[in-house]
């Protein structure tokens, strides 16, 4: 009898596995919108989040692009930060110790100007205590070298994937760009090159013009569009990639609520990342898993896989 009661009242299981990476829930903080974690201290209980993907790290510190770096658009945000970051040495020395004390999975986003650079950073992270996985940025639209150059060429994307996989035993997530004609082509290539998972989408290349000054609104002219405006595109691409590869897919793009996250999980994403929404409401990534749990309870759904729509 007791056993039966247990079955009935058992609360939904929100934990997931991506390769050897175990997450307590499927809601991650997206790179570039959560700093190095400390910035959110006191505003978001990181222990309640499935994982944190810290700001993209390069071999050397990068100063980023000149301002203006931001433009607000209807339901969206255009940015060109230019991958400003402290560099791998400072990350390991100054940022990682604090992050080790957080009870959530730490994933480090990396970027490089060459295959060798990606490989070198991955090696440095391989032995770093506390790092649970690597997300590889081959999709930033705001830098000329590296970034998107790797993400739009399936062959180059596969080369980066192989190099990073060779450099580390950590699970490797490849973050894909939507700025291609067929995202499944790159997804298939990186999957066969050994990626443990793919995350998508990075921002969509866009621009705005300031009609008062009659100049492009961003100093970099083009920027990456994020926020609720891009959600339908992101969802469509996640749906496509889920059906094209056998590795886990992490959905990103305009997710601000559990309703948004559920759409991605129904499309077949194993997990989701919260990006721009954290900038607006820092506690979003804490609220979303709680609300997903409520939805599952209300609908008697026990496992996240059961959310996925039939083919």
């Amino acid at each position, binding site marked *: 009898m007791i056993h039966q009661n247990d079955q009935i009242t058992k609360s939904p299981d929100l934990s997931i596995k991506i390769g050897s990476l175990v997450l307590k829930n499927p809601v991650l903080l997206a790179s570039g919108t959560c700093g190095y974690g400390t*910035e959110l201290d006191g505003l978001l209980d990181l222990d309640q989040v499935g994982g944190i993907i810290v700001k993209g790290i390069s071999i050397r510190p990068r100063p*980023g692009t*000149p301002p203006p*770096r931001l433009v607000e658009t209807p339901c969206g945000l255009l*940015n060109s*930060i230019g991958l400003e970051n402290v560099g791998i040495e400072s990350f390991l020395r100054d940022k990682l110790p604090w992050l080790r004390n957080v009870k959530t999975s730490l994933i480090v986003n990396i970027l490089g100007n060459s295959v060798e650079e990606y490989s070198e950073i991955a090696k440095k992270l391989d032995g770093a205590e506390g790092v649970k996985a690597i997300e590889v940025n081959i999709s930033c639209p705001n830098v000329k070298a590296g970034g998107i150059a790797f993400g739009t060429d399936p062959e180059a994307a596969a080369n980066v994937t192989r190099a990073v996989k060779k450099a580390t035993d950590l699970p490797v997530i490849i973050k894909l760009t939507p700025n291609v004609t067929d995202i499944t082509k790159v997804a298939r290539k990186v999957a066969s090159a050994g990626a443990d998972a793919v995350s998508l989408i990075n921002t969509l290349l866009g621009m705005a013009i300031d009609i008062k000054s009659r100049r492009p609104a961003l100093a970099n002219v083009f920027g990456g569009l994020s926020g609720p405006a891009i959600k339908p595109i992101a969802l469509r691409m996640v749906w496509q990639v889920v059906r094209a590869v056998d590795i886990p897919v992490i959905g990103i793009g305009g997710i601000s609520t559990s309703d948004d996250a559920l759409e991605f999980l129904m499309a077949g994403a194993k997990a989701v990342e919260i990006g*721009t929404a954290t900038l*607006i*409401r*820092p506690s979003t990534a804490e609220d979303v898993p709680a609300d997903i749990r409520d939805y599952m309870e209300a609908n008697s759904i026990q496992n996240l896989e059961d959310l996925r729509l039939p083919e």
Partner: protein
Amino acid sequence: MPKFDIPAEIVEQTQLAHGIFLLTVEAPAIQNSANPGQFCMLEVKYNNSRDPLLRRPLSIYKTQANGHISFLYKKVGKGTRLLSKRRPGEIVRVLGPLGQGFRLIHDRPCILVGGGLGIAPLLLPAERIKQSGKLVILIGAGNASEIPTIEDFSGLTRYFHVATEDGSLGQRGMVTDLLAQTLQEITGMAQIYTCGPWPMMKAVYHIARKKNIPCQVSLEATMACGIGLCLGCAVPKSDSREFLHVCKEGPVFDADQVNWEYTQ
């Protein structure tokens, strides 16, 4: 430093002049830990609307012991227009107090230089400095209607001067004229605190530098998060190719950290 993201009840929303508003909210936690020169991010959208997407950064103008914080702001776009339509009793989400405020120095005469609504972050430091030392307040604007709250400042010191470009209030001319005049009368060390349009702050900085007077500036930038997550509010540094971030290292900087030649 503790930060809070709280739903705050509006207790006052007053239009003081054309397009200029004073908004007061009840946010005791923020009021209690706010320092002069800090700011808050205010949610301007209604309910679950996602447009406008971003919060708006506003300097803390005034605080009261009863937990009230006031913001002095100008209706400049969609966000502030929506904010200006909010009425007492309604709830607005406020994140704060944010950033590094003014570093107050008490051993020398302090000169506050405000341009237009750049006076907003200067009232709190003025009130603090008044308690401990010599305070000079210089305010400039295009015309009198742009600075409807100068009475909050005029009673704080007898060294209070106003300049307007059209002569509708105080001396006709620029606030930098007032600064030059003041500095002629001050012998020995002084400290300048300034906020206003970029060209004004740049001119204030040049005057200060010539006289070797330290100058703190409160900068403004387009922001998304206000807490150092997005790095969007970058301003070029004077001594390298790197950037200052207005929300986290600022909004108040030593003026010589800033590359004043940079124009957006």
